């Protein structure tokens, strides 16, 4: 094996093992920042030694053992320091002794709990959203700072700083390394899900000219979601989010034309949808539903996505079910965008007049005032009702509001078509 091969192999081992190593170390040293440094030390040791010695039979265990030795060194250094500065006192010493004793438990203990704690601490609400995203991708996704920077189109020092700041914040806030319980769990879990979905959407919004690290964020998010689903199998919303991401990801190959132009869901070639991901998405949704209770926000969105995934052709779409799911979603998490989608679903299920009635209630909504899709959708309903003059006005209004040139062209085309009727 050449040195380059070995380095690549080490990269791969790191990708597979780093989260578990950092999680195990965090439990021992009680500080994510220190844990990551120790894990990095072990990685450096591997990079120095493996090209000579060859890759050990169990590379994960090797890295963990090396990192633990570094942890012991770290405690010893601190202990020396402690002798010099007696004010640090007995408390710290007891903590350290307990921590060293913890090594034994760590050998056989279930690493899953540590991983779950690491997920929760990386997505802690005390951190900024950017900090949560960067820390999660770094500690759990095994991405380098450079990879995160490329994926989010920001300079590397910015990401490095976000990570440093996040670690410092966690350390200063003395955030415990634990799985939240009781009422806390719901809020903390929703922070975790939000981070994962944000990563997914960032990847999903990538366009064809982008660095491949951007679309790869979808896979990173899916991997994190799938890990979380195994760590917290009784949380329906975790399965809901996984289902939503799997189904959305299944359309990745169909949602852009050869020139990179976006293709709307109903116009997509369904043969290009990834059936494996659809199958996995539907299975995850079923898991969420089986756990009982009312569907949460993600599971509900997944249920809507599933209606599309199940339809072999656009014409077979169960719009009545989608309309009723949007009704429920609008009650659960009301938002103008959900309302707008609801009008479309109702128009598809019950005809354009039903859609128009609902959308007219939205016209006065301040947050949609300059949103080009409102007049575009309303124009479409009016067109279908053969009210061409009104439709034309709406399409022209939509065209004046959008900043996307291609979309403006489309809307002006539709306005012209109205004039010809």
């Amino acid at each position, binding site marked *: 094996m050449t040195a380059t091969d070995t380095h690549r*192999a080490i990269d791969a081992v790191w990708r*597979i093992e780093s989260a578990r190593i950092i999680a195990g170390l965090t439990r021992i040293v009680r500080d994510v920042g220190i844990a990551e440094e120790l894990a990095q030390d072990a990685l450096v040791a591997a990079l120095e030694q493996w090209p000579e010695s060859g890759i050990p*039979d169990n590379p994960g265990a090797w890295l963990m053992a090396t990192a633990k030795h570094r942890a012991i060194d770290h405690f010893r250094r601190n202990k020396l320091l402690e002798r010099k500065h007696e004010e640090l006192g007995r408390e710290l010493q007891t903590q350290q002794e307990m921590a060293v004793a913890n090594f034994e438990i760590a050998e056989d203990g279930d690493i899953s709990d540590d991983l779950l704690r690491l997920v929760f601490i990386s997505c802690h609400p005390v951190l900024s959203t950017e900090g949560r995203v960067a820390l999660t991708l770094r500690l759990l996704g095994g991405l380098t700072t450079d990879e995160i920077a490329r994926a989010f189109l920001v300079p590397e020092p910015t990401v490095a700083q976000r990570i440093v700041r996040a670690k410092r914040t966690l350390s200063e806030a003395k955030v415990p390394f634990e799985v939240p319980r009781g009422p806390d769990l719901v809020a903390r879990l929703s922070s975790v899900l939000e981070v994962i979905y944000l990563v997914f959407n960032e990847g999903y919004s990538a366009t064809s000219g982008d660095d*491949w690290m951007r679309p790869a964020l979808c896979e990173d998010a899916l991997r994190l979601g799938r890990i979380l689903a195994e760590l917290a199998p009784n949380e329906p919303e975790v399965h809901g989010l996984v289902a939503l991401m799997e189904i959305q990801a299944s359309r*990745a190959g169909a949602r852009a034309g050869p020139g990179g132009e976006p293709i709307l869901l109903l116009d997509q070639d369904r043969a290009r949808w990834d059936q494996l991901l659809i199958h996995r998405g539907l299975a995850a949704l079923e898991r969420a539903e089986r756990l009982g209770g009312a569907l949460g926000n993600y599971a509900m969105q997944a249920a809507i996505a599933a209606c599309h995934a199940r339809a072999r052709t656009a014409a077979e779409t169960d719009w009545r079910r989608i309309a009723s799911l949007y009704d429920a979603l609008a009650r659960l998490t009301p938002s103008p965008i959900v309302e707008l989608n609801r009008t479309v679903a109702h128009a598809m299920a019950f005809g354009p007049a039903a859609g128009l009635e609902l959308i007219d209630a939205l016209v006065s909504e301040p947050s949609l005032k300059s949103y080009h899709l409102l007049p575009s959708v309303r124009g479409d309903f009016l067109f279908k009702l053969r009210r061409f003059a009104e439709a034309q006005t709406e399409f022209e209004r939509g065209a004046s509001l959008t900043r996307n040139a291609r979309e403006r062209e489309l809307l002006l085309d539709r306005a012209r078509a109205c004039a010809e009727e």
Partner: protein
Amino acid sequence: MKFMMIVKSAERSGRPPQALMEAIDKLGQEAVKAGTMVASGGLAPTAVSTRVRLSGGQLTKVDGPFTEAKEVIGGYAVFELKSKEEAIEGAMRFMELHKKHWPGWEGETEIRQIFGPEEFASKA
């Protein structure tokens, strides 16, 4: 990136040892927990398989077993991974289990990347 791992060996290797089956099961569970394994399956013997072949403009249907084949595909798994190296590392671990639990067994795991939209996009 998605990869398909295809496991090939002589068909008459006999029943795999129980310890191997358990170790493979554990490795598979770990991969599921790590969010990397998205599908897997074992294939029925070629004795109950059929090949439909087009050759020289002629379609022919041949029922198994295919005795001429030295090694046949016994199973597959689909992984979603960050790099080919990660796939190789996974295949190494899988084959190490065979080395440990089934002395004398010979075979291979072929690692094939499954093209996705991103690969097509990067070529465009």
